[in-house]
């Protein structure tokens, strides 16, 4: 075995021995750090579940233009060049005409209410246009869209003009705010974790003051003395990260039962899924890293005083 590995094994053994000597104290510290980590981990799990949902939805404005019920097909076709002209100023646009027959067929197909709709006799749906305006979300052209809608409303035979994607934009903006809030929360609680580990290691240095002083006199290098504390800090962070992730995963079960009931009302099967293996590994590494940083700061601060 190489001396390097032997030294690290010895340091890890020292850290584990410290844990064995006072398991209650270590467990308490793990719980304190785990509580600090739970909130950002829960937030990350939630965002990880919501992100794919929001990414599937387009944030580009989608305008639906409905003709009056009495407008003929010819009248509907006649305004197509004018629509094209109005939207041409706003960038790239995808204009689709939806005949009233197609709209009814689609409604029957998606709603499962074909029997009810058959009883209506005449088709109650008007001809319509769907205008997908690409690039508007990035361009911050909300004012342009409003002006465009006003122009479209003024076209002959037009009954209603509706912007369909405003709520998606709002959702995306909300998620961005949540993401930023979560980042700030994670930073704050990360500092809390570092502070807790810092204090834990400080107490350990005080407890082992004599051992450190004697080891120094016997020829121990700073690295030899520091390493067990680094391992203790990283171990504390790792265990706390594991406990926090376990708690968040356990909490998903009762949450999903409640969500399932709510989602059923919207004919959805949305469920919160636990984080994937890679994300879990990443969060555990971050937890261990925070513990290591706390231990390093504490060791640098307090060991210099031990002689």
């Amino acid at each position, binding site marked *: *075995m190489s*001396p390097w590995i*032997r*030294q690290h094994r*010895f340091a890890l053994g020292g850290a584990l021995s410290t844990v064995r*000597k006072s398991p209650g104290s270590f467990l308490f510290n793990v719980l304190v750090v785990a509580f600090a980590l739970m909130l950002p981990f829960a937030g990350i799990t939630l965002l990880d579940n919501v992100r794919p949902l929001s990414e599937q939805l387009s944030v580009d404005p989608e305008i639906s233009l409905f003709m009056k019920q009495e407008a003929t097909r010819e009248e509907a076709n006649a305004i197509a060049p004018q629509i094209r002209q109005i939207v041409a100023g706003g960038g790239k646009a995808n204009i689709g005409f939806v005949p009233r027959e197609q709209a009814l067929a689609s409604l029957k197909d998606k709603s499962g209410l074909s029997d009810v709709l058959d009883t209506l006799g005449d088709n109650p749906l008007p001809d319509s246009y769907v205008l997908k305006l690409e690039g508007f979300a990035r361009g911050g052209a909300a004012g342009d869209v409003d002006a465009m809608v006003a122009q479209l409303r003024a076209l002959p035979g037009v009954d209603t003009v509706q912007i369909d994607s405003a709520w998606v934009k709002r959702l995306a903006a909300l998620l961005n705010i949540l993401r930023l809030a979560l980042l700030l929360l994670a930073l704050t609680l990360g500092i809390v974790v570092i502070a807790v580990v810092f204090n834990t290691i400080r107490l350990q240095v005080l407890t082992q003051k*004599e*051992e450190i*002083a*004697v*080891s*120094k*006199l*016997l*020829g*121990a*290098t*700073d690295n*030899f003395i520091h390493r067990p504390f680094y391992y203790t800090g990283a171990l504390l962070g790792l265990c706390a990260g594991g406990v926090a992730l376990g708690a968040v995963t356990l909490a998903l079960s009762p949450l999903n039962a409640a969500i399932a009931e709510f989602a059923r009302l919207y004919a959805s099967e949305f469920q919160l899924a636990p984080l994937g293996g890679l994300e879990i590994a990443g969060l555990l590494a971050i937890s261990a890293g925070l513990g290591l940083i706390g231990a390093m700061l504490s060791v640098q601060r307090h060991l210099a005083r031990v*002689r």
Partner: protein
Amino acid sequence: MIEFQSVSKQYSHDAYALREVSLNIAKGELVYLAGPSGAGKSTLMKMVAAVERPSSGVVTVNGQDIGRIKKAGIPFLRRNLGLIFQHQRLLNDRSILGNVMLPLLVTGAPKAQAEGRARAALDKVGLLDRAKAMPLELSGGEQQRVAVARAIVNRPQIILADEPTANLDRAAADRVLDALRAFHAAGVTCVISTHDDQVLESASARVIRLEHGQLMGGAV
């Protein structure tokens, strides 16, 4: 091997621990440092171990200038020294075997090798049968012999014993001194500080006397 050239150690404006001390200790020599408490014996030893640095003058140990040695180099200097303290400074959370293994473990020696050499060192001071005992289960004299075993386990070139017989009864003190003399006989340089006149009377070696931080009788 150990050389002091006009060495002074000043802690404050008028507090000198050592004043203009010059001395030489040759390789393989046994030297007693004598003097009352506060004479500067411990300060002199601390300088040899690079625990303290001189305020002025030059301290050389094994060719290394203690005043200029880098912090990273100090552990490697100390690995060639065997330190024995007045109050033993054994670690009470481990067996005496664990205590004696420590100087080897800090150098990165394999555990099995460290244990073998620690047992051999305990055998030399007559405590092998107590290897598993905890320090607090031993008498003061036995604890000091454990400290001697810990000092010699890494086969040092120099042993520095700071008042090793203080607080011990005569029989226990003699056993500790016999052990140190045996290592000197094996070629190890030994520096033993004491204020015990009985020890000095029976000493068949050079005695360096210090008083108020100064050498009595000039450079030696």
